């Protein structure tokens, strides 16, 4: 039991975080709870503190919308929040799609799809920045927030809170795509929201820190990591993960049996390093 907790503690906490956020939003619509109203696009805590999706607002800006003051306050709150805890912490601790893609990835590993030789990953992880740029261009040309029209994230999230409709199709498409077409396909390659939070994440304070002296080079962390390009320092240098593409999901910390990985605050760990 203790090892179970030790090996999955962050995973369990993340699921609790993701599901309780969904339940709170759902309760707001179904039973009139006031704790967390709205949805991931824009919401209010206790009917007081506004929060708004900065990427959606950026698209609105490109589309030519007049932005209200409350909205900008909500954006500022979210940007500052994720700059503190890691931009893509949104992806692994909040976004409901993460549960679908994690399941697909788990099944890939279990059924041995990952081990089939000769199949190359057919896309670059930089695709998301192209999609991000494209979404802003289309927003400008069409005069609407373009990604918000097709976003499977909002489709699924809104679906769970307000009624699903054909939203299950979006879930299925992403699941099958990640399972059979591209490993970490949606979250790790295409999603422009993830790309946006990657950019914010470059400035974030809480980071995974690697201690090369303790590392035995088993590479379990690289296997489990959904963005394993960010773990380039493993077994080489004692550095924090600097790339914004790290989702702070902490799977690497859990699987490490040598205590070579752990969360720390970026600047503090730097000071430690220079102190050494």
């Amino acid at each position, binding site marked *: 039991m203790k090892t179970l907790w030790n090996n999955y503690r962050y995973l369990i906490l993340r699921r609790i975080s993701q599901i309780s956020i969904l339940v709170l939003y759902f309760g*707001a*619509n179904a039973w*009139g709870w006031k704790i967390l*109203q*709205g*949805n991931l*696009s*824009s*919401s*209010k805590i206790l009917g007081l503190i*506004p929060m*708004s*999706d900065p990427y*959606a*607002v950026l698209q*609105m800006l490109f*589309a*030519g*919308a*007049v*932005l*209200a003051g*409350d*909205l900008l306050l*909500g954006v500022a709150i979210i940007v500052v929040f994720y700059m503190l805890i890691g931009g893509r912490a949104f992806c692994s601790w909040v976004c409901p799609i993460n549960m679908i893609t994690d399941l697909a990835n788990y099944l890939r590993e279990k059924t041995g799809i990952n081990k089939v030789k000769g199949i190359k990953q057919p896309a670059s992880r930089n695709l998301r920045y*192209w999609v991000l*740029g*494209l979404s802003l*261009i*289309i927003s400008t*040309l*069409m*005069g*609407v*927030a*373009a990604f*918000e*029209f*097709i976003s499977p994230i*909002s*489709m699924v999230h*809104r*679906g769970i*809170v*307000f*009624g*699903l*409709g*054909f*939203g299950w*199709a*979006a879930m299925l498409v992403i699941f099958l795509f990640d399972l059979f077409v591209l490993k970490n396909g949606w979250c790790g390659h295409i999603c422009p929201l993830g790309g946006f939070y990657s950019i914010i994440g470059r400035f974030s304070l809480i980071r995974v820190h690697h201690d090369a002296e303790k590392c035995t080079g088993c590479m379990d962390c690289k296997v489990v990591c959904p963005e394993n390009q960010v773990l380039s320092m493993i077994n080489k240098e004692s550095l924090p993960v600097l790339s914004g593409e790290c989702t702070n999901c902490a799977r690497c910390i859990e699987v490490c049996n040598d205590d070579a990985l752990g969360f720390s605050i970026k600047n503090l760990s730097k000071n430690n390093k220079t102190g050494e």
Partner: protein
Amino acid sequence: MSSINPQKEERKMKKEPESDRRKFILNMARGVGIATLSGFIWSAYVDEAKASQLTLRPPGALKEEDFLKTCIKCGLCVEACPYDTLLLAKPGDDKPLGTPYFIPRDVPCYMCTDIPCVPVCPTEALDKNSLMTDGKLDINIADMGVAVIDDQSCIAFWGIQCDACYRACPILGEAITVEYSKNERTGKHAFLKPIVHADKCTGCGMCEQACVTEKAAIFVLPREVALGRAGDYYIKGWDKDDEKRLKNAKEIKTTTEISKRKAQDKLNGDFLEDMY
């Protein structure tokens, strides 16, 4: 032999950076190609989704084009609605995804005097200021749509007594009035025909819900769809205020083959020649 090898090596050295550059350019070109393809598909979808005109919006909504730009699809208005009138468009509803709308035949807008759906809007896509009379919220000036009567299927136009819509109207006697006229068919009865006054109608849809016919004979359409526009060329000469519209009128010249000559020449010359 030894004299050839360095030359070869040199050529290789020269080639390598070039092939890297070529690779980079090719990769960029591929990116642009894929971006163009997906951009067009994406824009086409957004364009189609935007085109659905028959959507009834909550009170105070901006003009549809601006509304689509500004609405962040958070659903706070939907949660604020005490009658579950407002719905959030889900995949399969054939409305721009995630935007609020209502179906009056199912649940009309009950025109709450405090208009709870409007002040909660974080983006001001629902504009409080458009619903203010003397500094107070006034739902009676809301402009969600306008009721239209199909006099072929309205049984009151057949001569059967029915004033369901008139009675249901929250601004009874102003938005809907009943016009009396003689029923020539029977010679001794009267028609009691409902008439909608577009300038007073808010488009709440209570009449549509109350209508007794199988498919409502009175129904709400967005104003842009239901109403015509006389333009600046036809003026009510008996109405002093209406004459102000003449200011906007501009001359339009239509040039065709005929307009090359004066009307008189045309009538005296070619026209007669053509005839004989």
